[in-house]
């Protein structure tokens, strides 16, 4: 069933661990949301332990589409996660983790490739080993690329290419940041993907200084120990080089028959440790998503777009290591998008005379989301990992909340002034004959 090594290693750990962990669960944990950080022979290991029965483990590698050596390589590398390694086949890995009741997944963002495992607390060594194998022992065989990886890439590309709002957001990133952060997350072409480019990108991304092990619900000492043991063969290195992100702004229009969407974006705040919480508050002030069932909500965007049929407008703030983007994506029928776009710009301009109680409301919502996210152990590991790789320290939820509470009306107004003073980013996707230009909406690009 299992590889021989797994059995011989698993037994003593299992026996010794049970008694310790029973005790751990019963004892009240002083600060369950505190991430402690340590260095395990060059690999940053961070965890929080609330003594719960399940664990979420993630390896965050700084190797998202921003850093890729050729278009689409990051996407292919992410899809190669949990494929055959020199130690076990992908089928065996799947079946083994099924037997342990675990789930494995991987995800790709602009900046990171994240390998995730959720499992029962006792199985930590098995999953550290499994994720570690992905980093150094994946075979990257051409037939697995042709038979499995390529198909999943096509599927995700199809999904992306058939969602107007997703195209609009990618286009906005491209306009805002050009190369790097602006390069598309999904592989638009497989031209550059082969059995040389993908493994060599893997070799540069999966290096000691470039990854972080993040766990939620695992004891830090055990995590360090197993990381040292199972990730011993990860080569030293600091990952792909990059140029700092620069915000450009501007306008772009893309024709697509699949739907209609506009994205209006402004420069935001970089992620931890230089995070400016007022930009998150701005996103919550603009809002768009209703918090109360069957109502439009009371945020600025939902109020201004309330009367327009079939339109949804959502504001979000994305924080990257050295830049950020505050973006509003509006989707709906092409005929309605002109008025919806005008309404969104009106909401943005109204930010300048926002009232103190609105700020208070937005802060409360932001605080709730931050705390709710940290309670669910599988969310937010990527943000922690990204900050740990960049700065060596983990952003603590208490500090994040304190930061949000400290946002004043003046800070918000200052942020509004700076985004309205600068160049906006505008992307129109869909039936470009009908969709408005940035200037018509009153945006400065």
């Amino acid at each position, binding site marked *: 069933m299992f590889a021989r090594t797994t059995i011989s290693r698993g037994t003593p750990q299992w026996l010794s661990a049970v008694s310790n962990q029973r005790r751990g669960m019963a004892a009240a944990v002083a600060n369950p949301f505190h991430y402690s950080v340590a260095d395990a022979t060059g690999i940053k290991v961070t965890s929080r332990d609330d003594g719960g029965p399940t664990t979420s483990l993630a390896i965050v590698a700084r190797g998202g589409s921003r850093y890729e050596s050729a278009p689409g390589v990051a996407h292919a590398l992410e899809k190669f996660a949990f494929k055959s390694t020199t130690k076990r086949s992908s089928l*065996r890995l799947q079946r083994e983790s099924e037997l342990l009741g675990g789930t494995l997944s991987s995800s790709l963002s602009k900046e990171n490739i994240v390998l995730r495992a959720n499992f029962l607390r006792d199985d930590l060594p098995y999953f550290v080993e499994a994720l570690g194998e992905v980093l150094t022992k994946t075979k990257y065989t051409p037939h697995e690329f042709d038979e499995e990886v390529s198909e999943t890439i096509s599927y995700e590309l199809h999904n992306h290419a058939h969602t107007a709002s997703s195209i609009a957001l990618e286009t906005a990133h491209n306009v805002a940041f050009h190369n790097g952060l602006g390069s598309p997350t999904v592989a638009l072409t497989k031209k550059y993907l082969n059995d040389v480019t993908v493994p060599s990108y893997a070799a540069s991304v999966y290096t000691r200084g470039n990854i972080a092990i993040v766990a939620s619900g695992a004891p830090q000492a055990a995590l360090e120990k197993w990381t040292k043991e199972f990730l011993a063969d990860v080569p030293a290195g600091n990952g792909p080089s990059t140029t700092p992100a620069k915000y450009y702004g501007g306008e772009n229009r893309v024709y697509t028959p699949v739907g209609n969407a506009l994205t209006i974006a402004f420069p935001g705040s970089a992620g931890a440790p230089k995070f400016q919480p007022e930009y998150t508050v701005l996103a919550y002030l603009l809002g768009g998503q209703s918090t109360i069932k069957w109502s439009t909500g009371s945020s600025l965007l939902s109020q201004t777009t309330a009367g327009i049929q079939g339109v949804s407008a959502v504001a979000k703030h994305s924080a990257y290591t050295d830049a950020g983007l505050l973006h509003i994506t509006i989707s709906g029928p092409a005929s309605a998008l002109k008025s919806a776009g005008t309404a969104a710009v009106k909401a943005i301009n109204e930010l300048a005379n926002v009232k103190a109680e609105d700020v208070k409301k937005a802060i409360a919502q932001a605080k709730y989301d931050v705390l709710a996210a940290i309670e669910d152990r599988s969310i937010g590991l990527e943000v922690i990992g990204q900050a740990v790789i960049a700065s060596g320290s983990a952003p603590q939820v208490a500090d994040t909340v304190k930061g949000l509470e400290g946002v004043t009306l003046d800070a918000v107004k200052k942020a509004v002034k700076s985004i309205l003073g600068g160049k906006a980013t505008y992307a129109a996707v869909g039936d470009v004959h009908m969709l408005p230009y940035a200037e018509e909406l009153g945006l400065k690009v």
Partner: protein
Amino acid sequence: MPPLSIAKSIVARPWLQRVLGPVANRYADLAGYRQIGLVADDLIIEETDVVQQAIKRLPPKVAYDRMFRMRRAVQCSVAHQILPKQDQTKPEDDVPYLSPYIEEIEAELRERNELDSLAKAK
């Protein structure tokens, strides 16, 4: 399922290979496929799922060469001729290019079967 073969155990013993190697080569020459430009792996029956899968996994150049050899061989067969000496397969070119892929796929299937029929031990 490949036919039973003692070839591996012979290759593992150098002295045995020294004795039987020339015999094997002579046999391969007499079999006649080298005279029409084929290699031994071209003779594997390809009408099975495993071999079809293996052929799909061949690198493009290797797959192209395989197709070329087959067409040339068919042409030879139709014309009742053998190739001129310089075009015939040399013994050193007669390498297994397909069987490693077949073995890999068979190992995958075996593993899948094993995992599918796991029984709890105790």
